[in-house]
Each structure stands twice: as structure tokens, then as C-alpha cells.
């Protein structure tokens, strides 16, 4: 059904594009109007089906699990790294980051849209704000490690941890509110 709805929009678009290409300045509105209405109906169908699927899709459940697991891993690994950061040579910190965080950061980011469906746009914005700041701080640790700035590396490992903890708090808050 979703395929049919999208097909309707695509066909309407192609037919409309053909009609607009018939003349350099004019458009045949009597033919163009019904085509756009058909396309709009396709969009409405598609959106309704999407909204219905969003409520009971197994992908959402799996994405939610990915979100929880990846955020938990990030916080856990970062806490561990924060505890032993003095012992990691400054120039090696970037390798630790690539090894410990890249995969989970990507996994969380890939599944992020699910949060909109499950917890609403504002919760999504609040969680992503903290998550993005935490990721940016991790990237800063990577850069400072590359350049050998030891204090910056140590400071931003901690700042990043506190940011991801905040993201986790926001996430848990959103989960509780959704129940």
C-alpha cells in the first residue's frame, strides 16, 4: 500500500513535469491541477501509512534497543576512560576514541529518527542537543590528542562524559514520559 502511495506521487510528479515542459512560459492548468491533486492524495496516503507503521513497527523496537545500548556503551566506556585518562599517553588518546566510540556514536545517530516517533520532537531535540555536544567534545579530544595538548584532552574527556550523561538522563526522562 505504501508503495502504491509513493508510486502515485512519482507518477503525478513525472506527469506534472512533462506538462510544465510543453511551453517556455505557459502551463495547461486544467490538466496540471488534477495531477497535483492526485499527487497530494498520494502524499496524504503515504503519511498516514507511515504514522500507522510508526506506532507498531518492529524496526522501531529494534532502533529503540540500539539507542539504549549504544548510549549506555558510550557512557560506560567514557566513564572508564575518564577514570584512567591520566594513564593514556596524550597522542594515543585518539586511537582509544576511534576504538571505543565511533561504532556506538554511528549506531545512535543512525537510529535517532525513531526518537521523534516514540518521544516527540521536543524530547528528540533535547536528547540530540546533548548528544551532539558530547560527540563534538569527543572530536575535540581527538584533535587535541593529535596536536599533543594534554590539558585539553583531559578536560574534554570529562566534559564529554558529563554531556553524554545528560543525554542519557534526557533519554530516560523521555522513556518514562512515554510510558
Amino acid at each position, binding site marked *: 500500500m505504501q508503495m502504491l502511495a509513493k508510486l502515485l506521487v512519482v507518477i503525478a510528479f513525472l506527469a506534472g513535469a512533462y506538462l510544465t*515542459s510543453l511551453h517556455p*512560459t505557459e502551463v495547461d492548468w486544467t490538466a496540471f491541477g488534477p495531477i497535483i491533486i492526485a499527487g497530494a492524495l498520494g502524499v496524504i496516503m503515504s503519511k498516514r501509512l507511515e504514522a500507522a507503521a510508526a506506532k507498531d513497527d518492529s524496526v522501531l523496537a529494534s532502533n529503540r534497543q540500539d539507542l539504549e545500548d549504544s548510549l549506555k556503551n558510550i557512557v560506560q566506556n567514557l566513564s572508564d576512560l575518564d577514570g584512567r585518562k591520566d594513564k593514556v599517553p596524550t597522542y594515543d588518546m585518539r586511537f582509544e576514541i576511534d576504538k571505543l566510540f565511533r561504532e556506538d556514536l554511528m549506531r545512535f545517530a543512525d537510529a535517532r529518527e525513531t526518537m521523534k516517533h516514540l518521544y516527540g520532537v521536543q524530547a528528540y531535540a533535547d536528547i540530540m*542537543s546533548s548528544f551532539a555536544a558530547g560527540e563534538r567534545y569527543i572530536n575535540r579530544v581527538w584533535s587535541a590528542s593529535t596536536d599533543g595538548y594534554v590539558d585539553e584532552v583531559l578536560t574534554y574527556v570529562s566534559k564529554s562524559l558529563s554531556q553524554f550523561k545528560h543525554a542519557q538522563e534526557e533519554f530516560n526522562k523521555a522513556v518514562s514520559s512515554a510510558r
Partner: protein
Amino acid sequence: MSDQTASQAGPITKGAYPELTPHAVIVGYFLGAIIALSIGYASLKLGFSIEGSELAAILGFGILRGILRRRSIVENNVTQTVASAVNGASSGMMFSVPAIFILGYGYDFNPYVLTFGAIAGAFLGIAFIIPLRKQMIDFERFTYPGGVAVASILKSPGAGVEKAKLLVAGALVSAVVYFFSDGADLELFNIINDVVGSEILPPYLNGAWYISLLTIGVGFIAGRGGVAFIIGGYVCYWLLAPMLDLTGMLPVVDGVKVTDPGTLRVTLFRPTGIGMLIGGAVIGVMFALPLIKSAIKSMQSSAKSESAMSADEMPIKLLYIAVAGAAILLGVMAITANEQVGFARGIMMAVLGTLWIWMAGIILSEAIGRTNWSPLSGMTLIAVTLLIIITQSFGGMDTGPAIVAAITVGAATCVAMSQATDLMLDLKTGYLVGATPRMQQMGQFFGAWLGPILIIVLIFVLNDAYGLGSDELPAPQGEALASMVKGITGGDVPTEKYVAGAALGGLLTALQGGLGITVGLGFYLPFNIVLTYSLGTLLREISDRKKGKVWSDNYGIPIAAGMIVGEALVGVVKAVLIILAAN
């Protein structure tokens, strides 16, 4: 700051990590001035404009690390931000101001008002981007291929010699190819037709491939994000054009069927594409409003709680000041541009200009975020068109003053749009290297004032020396705008096609966010670019499937980034050589 040496990797430094430093700003000014003048001249001569970030990053890299022996990726990022902010005026003003000269009103406008307006426009563009950064980079995580390429450059020394070698190899090959190709096309279908001995492939199929590794590199970095853009191009030339031919509906001029793809693009497809960009943007803004609102709310609440991340951002209050400032400034500019404008028209122009800066800022940021192509000239054309329509209200102004007022305000909005897009690219790079957005935004403010001054001086000098629109300096973008203005004042605008295109773009964006804009770009741009771009997308798909995403990230992207940098550098060197030859 005390240094001590680590046994294996290099010096260890205590203390603050240099970011927005005098070194970064001064080197940024130096590079920005060179790049802005070179690219500004080249765009008048050749009709192209180059995004300055990549060049500034690699040149800044050489100066800061190579000569000044400084070691800070984020400082390098600020230098690149300052330099590209200076350069932002070259595309912003070269799309608009030359049209005034070409139309014969070069000495009827106040250059001080225009320059001041362009500077203020630049500041407003930067302020308007504050909530969009959060929405497009933090939340939507758009690709920004150019920004990723720059981040690859900045991170090269840390990622090891291997990545730097790949980047340099990509840059060298790309530079050599562009040096010899000089932006030419590979006319593949003509070659096939010649080999076969008859025209088996009709010209409208447009089998000319733009010889540009930069374009392939951009397609590679954008990956699947650019597929809709490619589809837009193929729909025009491989579906609509054959359908028009089969149904006998191709245009006929002087009894001859028009099959030239360039003519079909300009007369049939591009106006629809412009409409799609607008319609896609309007619907996109409607859909994105809740998220933009949430971004602002989220920023307000973190500012209230004084969290660490709120200190990283420019205050959200700046946006509100910018909105009010934009309306007042554009109003003053419009009213002082010519005495015929009057108060009512001035207010209308100000409100429209302010809305357009935001709307077009969103369109351009999204377009460049998804595909690395920015339809700045199209957005400028629309802005000036709307402004001229206003000048014709309340009884209408004389043609000359109307054009001067519309282009003066249009130039300010164009610079604002250009700065907004440039800053978004730099902010994406900053995100990837861990820079502080506030430092970058301040760097952009530091750089934004210089470009308009340099460019207005350059425009007057070159106009006095050669005449804008002459054979020596054809100023193709200014010519396009001038033709458009002549068309409007003569009542010749394809309004119906814009409206129909807007409906189509809106339909696609309603189905999937951003789709109307990216497909519309495929309608808008020449197909030779789309074809070459599609090679990059194809290579990325093959690389992801056969070698894996990690390989694409570690090897493919540095090579692709090098390809972008190499060709851009040759472009600037060529521009400098042209300036030297002209002198």
C-alpha cells in the same frame, strides 16, 4: 604554556588549546583577501565561483603548521572560517552588483550604501544561521561534503602519513586533470555517433561529461544523499526530452526542432527547477518549523541552566536582534537608495528581504548540506525579481531607480545568503574536528566585513579598466541577472512555470524532506555536471558494498577530498595568472 617532548609522537603542550587567536585571524585575513580577489576576478572573467573553505584550509595549514610551526587543528579551522568569510562577498556580490553596471546605471548608485549594506547583510546571514546550525548539523546531521572534505584535510596529520598521502595523491591527479581539461566536456555521445557514422543518440540526451575530478569527489563524499539530485537531471534529459520528442512537443524555432540540451535546459527545465527549489523550501520550512522551534527552545533552556554547551553557542538573543536589525537596515538601504522608493515601498522591500534571507538561507544550507551545490544565483534572481515587482507597486518607479534600489537591497540579501551557506560548511567542519561554534561564528564576524570592501573596490577598478560586460570581462552571472531584470521590466517572466514547479517541488518535499530541493537542483544545473557527479555516487556505492564503509571513510574520503582541493587550487592559480597577465 610549557612544552616537554614525548618519546614517540611529538611535543606535549600544557595549557589552552589555541582556537580563536590573533594568528588565526591575521592569516585568515591574508588568505581571504587573496582568495576573494582571485575568485572575484575569475567569476567576472569566466563565470564560475569557488567555495573558499577548502583552499583556505589547505593554505592555512601550510602557513600555520609549515611556516609558523603552530599545532592546532581547531585554530586552523578558525583561520579557514575567517578566510572563507572574507571570500563570501566574492560570490555574493559578483552575482548581483555587475548587473547594475551592465544595465548602464553604474554611477547612479551609492557605493557606500551598497558596501555598508553588504557588510551588514553578511552579519545578518551569520546570525540567521544560529538556530539552523543546531537543526541541520546537530539534529538532521546533513552530510555537507565540502565540510567533510575540509575536516579530512585538517585531520590528516593526526590520522597519520597514510591519509595525508592519499589526500595529496588525489589532489595531484585532480590538479593535473583540471589543468589540461580546463573545465571542458567529454562529448561521449558525439564520439559514439562519429564512430557509428550516424546520429544514433539524439543531442537532447546530452551525453557530455564534465571533466572534473572535483565533481566526482563531491559525489563520492555526498554518497546516497546526492541520488535525488542525479534523478532530477536524468528525468529532464533521458525521460522528459525523449517524451517531448516522441509526442512531437519539442519546441520549434524558425521551422527547426530544438534538440540542443542547453537551450532545452534554459527555456524548459530550469524555470521549473527554480520553482521546485522554492516550493520544496516552503513546504520544507513548514515541516521543519517544529524542529527549528524545538532547536530554539532547546537553546533557550540550556542558556537558562547555563550548561556547558550553551556557552559554546552565540546567544539566541542575537537572532532576534538580527531579525529586527535586518528589517531596519534593509528599509534604510531601500529608502536611501533612491528618493523615488519612499517609505511604504522601503518597508515592503525590507520585510521581503528579511524573509528572503531566512528562507533562502534554509534552501541554500540544505542544498549544500545534501549535495554540495548551492543555487545562490537562482536565489539572487528570485530576490531581485520580487524586489523589482515591489518597486512597480503604488504607481511604479522609473526603470533606472527601480533597478538600482532592487539590486542594492538584492546584493545585501545575496551576501547574507552566501555567508550563511559558507558558515554552515565551516560549522560542519568544526563539528567534525571539535571546534567551538561560538569561536567560529566570531571568526566569521571578524572576516565578513573585509570582503565587501575589497570586492566593491575590485568591481570599480575592473569596470574602469575594461568595462563590466565587455569581451574582456563578460561577467556571465551579472549578464544573466541583467537579462532577467530586462525581462521583468519588459513583463517577460515565466511565472506560470515557477508556480507549477513550486507545486511539484512541494509535492516531493511533502513526501520526503528535502526531496523537492535536490530533484529541483537536477532540473536547474547543467546535465554534464550531473553525469559526472553520478560517477562519484556510483563509486561510493561500489566502495561501500565491496570494500565496506570503513574503507570508504579511511581511504575513499581522503582521496575524494584531495580531488576537490586539487582542482580548486588549480582554479585559483589560473585566476591569479589571469590577473597577472591582465596587468
